């Protein structure tokens, strides 16, 4: 029993929690994930490593449902993610049972973040090595939300965010190009952001879309390819337009 009292996450002399920072490193090595909030839609996109030929791709869905109106994508240790997702799913149902109300996005984010924090302050455990992007709609007001949590247990709401590999470049891109969008425009923005760091193609990214009416919908590879092609075309047109005026002079 005494062995389990040994805390693994302890302060360093200059006030750092190294285990938490190492966990953030693990996140930084994970697949890129991006989330964008629109006025009536929320989009999650994740980088997909090319699946081995013999692997059944349906078993490696990276964007999951926590409840009918909440979805989650993450970057980092996938095994840790599975545990966290299961606990969150149980909490969603438990909330429905005790208060006869679906959870709000903020509530379940707070729960997941609280869980991640608990594992930074307990004996014999290590922090969860993942950051999550949680999206959903408020059950009554219908307002869409996007939240992010990280291994330290902090969480905050975002209009658009990215985590995982190259998240800084994606975030920069989003900061430059974000504007209030809805429907298809939001999907395009999310895919454009992800394509900044991922090779183009439907087979390298997984995108899911959530609306209030239809819940979570995973986009087909063909759909993603089509949108990616649109984005390419728009990019080329923009390039051409830039080159054109000087010629006219």
């Amino acid at each position: 029993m005494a062995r389990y009292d040994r805390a693994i996450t302890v302060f360093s002399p200059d006030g750092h929690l190294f285990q938490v920072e190492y966990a953030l490193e693990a996140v930084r090595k994970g697949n890129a994930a991006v989330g964008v909030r629109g006025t009536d839609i929320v989009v999650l996109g994740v980088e997909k490593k090319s699946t081995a030929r013999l692997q059944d791709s349906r078993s490696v869905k990276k964007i999951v449902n926590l409840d009918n109106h909440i979805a989650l994508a993450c970057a980092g240790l996938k095994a840790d993610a599975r545990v966290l997702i299961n606990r969150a799913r149980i909490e969603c149902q438990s909330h429905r049972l005790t208060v006869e109300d679906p959870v709000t996005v903020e509530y379940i984010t707070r729960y997941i973040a609280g869980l991640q924090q608990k594992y930074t302050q307990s004996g014999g455990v290590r922090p969860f090595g993942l950051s999550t992007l949680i999206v959903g709609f408020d059950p009554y007001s219908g307002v869409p939300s996007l939240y992010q949590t990280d291994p330290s247990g902090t969480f905050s709401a975002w209009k658009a965010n990215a985590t995982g590999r190259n998240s800084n470049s994606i975030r920069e891109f989003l900061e430059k190009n974000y504007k209030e969008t809805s429907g298809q425009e939001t999907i395009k923005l999310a895919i454009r952001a992800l394509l900044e760091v991922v090779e183009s193609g439907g087979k390298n990214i997984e995108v899911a879309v959530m609306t209030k009416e239809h819940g979570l919908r995973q986009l087909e590879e063909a759909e993603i390819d089509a949108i990616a092609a649109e984005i390419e075309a728009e990019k080329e047109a923009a390039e051409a337009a830039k080159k054109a005026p000087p010629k006219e002079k």
Partner: protein
Amino acid sequence: MKLDTTGMESAAPVWGSHNELVDEFSAAPSFELPNTTDFDGFQKEAIQMVKPAKGTTTLAFIFKEGVMVAADSRASMGGYISSQSVKKIIEINPYMLGTMAGGAADCQFWHRNLGTKCRLHELANKRRISVTGASKLLANILYSYRGMGLSVGTMIAGWDETGPGLYYVDNEGGRLKGMRFSVGSGSPYAYGVLDNGYRYDMSVEEAAELARRAIYHATFRDGASGGVASVYYVGPNGWKKLSGDDVGELHYRYYPVMPSTVEQEMVEVTGA
């Protein structure tokens, strides 16, 4: 489910053996049982003695404008009237009311506790708890104390995002959603008047008068109900106390004394 293990401990525990802290698994509260011949009967008798017969009349109903809640104010211990001025409508928070029937202490304590939980919910979630949620919290608590002698027959009435809400919750852990409820020994009489006069689209004054009359009639016939008939209204802006009338006065208001002719009036006999 939290099992009630109080009946499963050994029938004759040794006095002074403290096993409260040892077991990690049985977290249910327990008490030491006395040595007695009729073990099963004793338990039932004890519960019956502790459980007062819910001598009271409370009622609540939903109508077009909101929820009307009314109650009497008599507390009785058997045949003795211990108080005529008990507050049986408990203010959980500015937009939710609870009624008291059964054990006064149980109702007061658990309503207060519910108010605390509702406030914590508000602080944590930045929004008010629904009447559904509040009544469910109370019902879950009462269910976990099932069989331990709590006596609570309460109605939770309030106004939330979805409009007016009314739930009946009791010490068995039962919870019912409804439009009209009356609880207590005087409830049959109150139901008679309430069910007869109820219409969904009444005005606030009409509904208040209906509630007042129902309580009055219950106090008239039921010995365990009496005192003051309080009427509260719960609307979109919270609850408001509308009236608190002594039922004795209500009686003469509804049935004023008519001077009737007597056959032979008695005349004062002047001194010789």
